[in-house]
């Protein structure tokens, strides 16, 4: 019986890691290339308000988070497209407001106080079947969306003004991309945690971009890096009893440091070669 429990736990963890990696690879590449890292942080923290509201109303907190996450992502995109507000200030306000709303509602909820720590720092133990299904669906949708519209999405991200000369749907694609990204972020909260999620979205893509500038390769390789980092972090936290989210972040940052080291070595060796050939 114990074996069976362990077995299904490992399967769940690996499935969770796989889906989180796919979302990190696809959404992360988009976020890092478009410099939307801070915005993603804002969306993640804003969605915490939805978690609190979900508890207060007695509905699934992830549903509340999804509504808040999607709403704030689309709202930020709308405001930045209008150019009517300092974008970084708007994000900062939204960031703090989301956290405040979440904490107030959780405080107001009568009875048992939910385990806030698991939302802030993430835990595979609290991931439900519903969460896994949600992550699986968003992964599939992101893969299909990116595969079908690859060129259009690439060129809109790269040079929106030029893209307007060949498609009338630039804004539509932008909202869909941001909306899907917001949902992907929110669905990763239970596993990676509000505070840690930014690491999943930024570190793998940044590691890969040290070595390649080809967009498709960045997506594929950063998915693989994420998977290695998340499953490595899972394993480490399982054996050491350390919190999962924090361990994953530590492992990813370690990867990043090693990658930087490798690149520096590569650079200096190619400079050495160049020196030798010129002399």
């Amino acid at each position, binding site marked *: 019986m114990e074996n069976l429990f362990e077995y299904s736990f490992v399967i769940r963890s690996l499935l969770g890691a796989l889906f989180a990696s796919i979302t990190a690879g696809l959404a992360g590449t988009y976020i890092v290339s478009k410099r939307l890292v801070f915005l993603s942080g804002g969306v993640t923290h804003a969605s915490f308000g939805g978690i609190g509201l979900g508890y207060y109303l007695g509905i699934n907190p992830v549903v509340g988070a999804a509504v808040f996450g999607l709403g704030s992502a689309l709202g930020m995109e709308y405001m930045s497209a209008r150019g009517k507000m300092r974008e970084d200030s708007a994000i900062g306000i939204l960031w703090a407001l989301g956290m405040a709303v979440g904490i107030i509602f959780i405080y107001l909820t009568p009875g048992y106080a939910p385990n806030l720590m698991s939302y802030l720092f993430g835990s595979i133990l609290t991931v439900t079947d519903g969460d896994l299904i949600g992550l699986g669906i968003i992964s599939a949708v992101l893969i299909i969306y990116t595969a079908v519209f690859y060129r259009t999405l*690439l060129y809109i*991200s790269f*040079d929106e003004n030029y893209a307007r000369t*060949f498609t009338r749907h630039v804004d539509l694609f932008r909202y869909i991309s941001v909306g899907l990204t917001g949902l992907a972020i929110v669905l990763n909260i239970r596993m990676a945690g509000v505070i840690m999620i930014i690491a999943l979205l930024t570190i793998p893509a940044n590691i890969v971009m040290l070595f390649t500038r080809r*967009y498709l390769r960045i997506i594929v390789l950063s998915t693989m890096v994420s998977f290695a980092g998340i499953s490595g972090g899972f394993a480490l936290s399982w054996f050491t009893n350390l919190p999962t989210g924090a361990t994953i972040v530590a492992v990813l940052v370690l990867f990043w440091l090693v990658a930087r080291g490798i690149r520096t070595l590569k650079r200096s060796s190619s400079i050495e070669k160049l020196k030798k050939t010129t002399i």
Partner: protein
Amino acid sequence: MSTLFSIESMTAGYEEKIVLRDVSMDVEENDFIGIIGPNGGGKTTLLKVILGLLKPLSGRVDYSPGDLKLNQIGYMPQVAQGDALFPVTVEDVVLSGMMHHKGATGRMGRNEKRRAAEVMDELGLTALAHQALNELSGGQLQRVYLARAVSGSPRLLLLDEPATFVDASFEADFYEKLKILNNRMTIMMVSHDVGTISAWVKSFACVSEKVFYHPHSKITQDDLRLYGCPIQLVTHGDVPHVVLHKHD
């Protein structure tokens, strides 16, 4: 010479600010027009209206004289617009010039890759095909954006200040390439440097709320004053400095 397209009493602008007023102009096939005029005079706006990116407030652009289609217009925006740190290769950027002929799925097959290779070869970019944009010099970047503008085999090429940020030594080479392209397409090029481009263009259009077409590449200070075009005519050589009269 036959007309490629006509602009008919077109007025255009943004949010209650009219930039171009009652502009009429016929653009002849295979012309090479230097578009000059003061800042804010409407040069970029004119290009955007021709591209179909900005709807005129009144009047219209008639593409029927030369049966010109919107997807037969190549566009090179001001170079600073693309994000040069964005992870994209030279080949990818050149391929994007063919998106006009594709649906939203934009699949790039063997034909498109071959066409991109041709254009990169013509513009001396072949060795850079798989480089990222952030590894390129200003002159190389400029040729990449030109390659993007012409890879879709346009009949009309619109260039918005293509020589900004480029070393003067690359400029002549760049205009030389445009001259060759002009054999197979009409070109309209926005520039600040009237003196330099007068050696390359066939005609000028001065844009300052109105558009005045000047059918020769020789343009004098008097012409400019006549057109109400308050710009500095840069002269090369030991011509005395000219003090301009402000346009009233």
